[in-house]
């Protein structure tokens, strides 16, 4: 009944923790490392609130065991802002009022940033399909989609100047 020692990289920094074999990466992040930006929604992979990037790919942290983080590169919502400056996606969500209760927001931010890293100019349909694994029960999605479009436009402008 021993815990597992996990060495990993979280938001660019080396990190280590002890977890039970049955604990998810979501539990390890929130309950052990106290990185509570990542939220628990459904805990079965449907809602996307716990979305994190793992080795460059977005995954539901509730469906990853903490032990699987060994040697991996994890990016959580806490790592999106750089040097105290919000990312274009975060700024657009604020300016576009793309959140109400905020529980889904960290998952949307991580997922939307990953989309824009792959596709600088996604269509509305591409945004909606990419974010289909993220549920929001407040906004009705339109403000989220428009904010991702605005963030994409801002990023393209910044890249051009």
């Amino acid at each position: 009944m021993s815990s597992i020692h996990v060495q990993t990289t979280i938001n660019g920094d080396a990190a280590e923790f002890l977890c039970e074999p049955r604990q998810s990466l979501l539990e390890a992040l929130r309950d052990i490392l106290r990185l509570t930006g990542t939220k628990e929604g459904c805990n079965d992979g449907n809602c996307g609130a716990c979305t994190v990037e793992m080795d460059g790919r977005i995954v539901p942290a509730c469906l990853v065991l903490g032990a699987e983080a060994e040697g991996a590169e994890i990016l959580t919502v806490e790592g999106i802002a750089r040097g105290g400056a919000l990312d274009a996606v975060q700024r657009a969500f604020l300016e576009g009022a793309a959140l109400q209760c905020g529980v889904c927001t960290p998952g949307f931010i991580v997922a939307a940033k990953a989309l824009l890293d792959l596709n600088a100019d996604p269509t509305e349909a591409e945004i909606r399909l990419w974010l289909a694994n993220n549920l929001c029960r407040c906004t009705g999605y339109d403000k989220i989609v428009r904010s991702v479009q605005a963030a994409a436009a801002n990023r393209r402008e910044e890249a051009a100047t």
Partner: protein
Amino acid sequence: MHWIEYLRPSTLDECLDAFAEHGANARGLAGGTDLLVQMRAGRRTNAVVIDLKAVPELNELSCDSASGLTLGAAVPCYRIYGDRAVCELYPGLIDSVSMIGGTQIQGRASVGGNLCNASPSADVIPALIALRATCLIASADGRRTVPVEDFCTAPGRNVMRHSEVLVSLHLPPPGPGSGAAYLRFIPRNEMDIAVAGAGVSVVLDGGTFTAARVGLAAVAPTPLLVREAGEALCGCRVSRAALEAAGEAARAAASPISDMRGTAEYRRNLCAVLTRRALETAVNRAGGVLD
């Protein structure tokens, strides 16, 4: 979740030894999108979880037009649709792996896992059936190969013994004039389970079908190979009438249940429609034109 032991073998031999030792107590972990949910719900109580993702053979993805596709059982969906050669040679497989769950699920879920979970509604299985996939199964005692249409034995059950592991799938190279497609019906745009699904492949030669396979999802206790639908096409001119006949063969082969997703009658109708439409796409992809 109940207490588990977590093992992460780094070679196939270590992996097979672990399954030999733990037998029915063990369950392989690829993407975890079924397993961890089932364990939390108390539907699986295996005490040992064997993470398959560090075993090279289960992570292999190699694809070319001479030898076909070898797909390690733990390779996640996103790696498959991110591979240019697979996209070019196996668009029917790409149809299925790009519609399982959503982006995050596709970052974890594997074709091998979808197969081992043996759900009647699994999206990849009809595509694999249409594409003549074979399963390489290994244990400490040896290896065997099983055609994918014989792999599932009942809802949630497959042919593997407790000591065995699904190592990889092999898809033969598509010859000249080949086309394939997978189509499913769900009442929303994404993130849902098939009411019914049809995976098809065709081979065309001079406006005639020379080979065809049809697989169906969610209309029987296991995914179904409908030999009658393929036979209905073989030797026929590439025409709408031929596709209609194949669709009717698919309708006749289905033995669906009525549940919250749809009635049996509705599902039988879907079999005919989805088979015909998937065949239209497959014919287009094969460069054929419908009479």
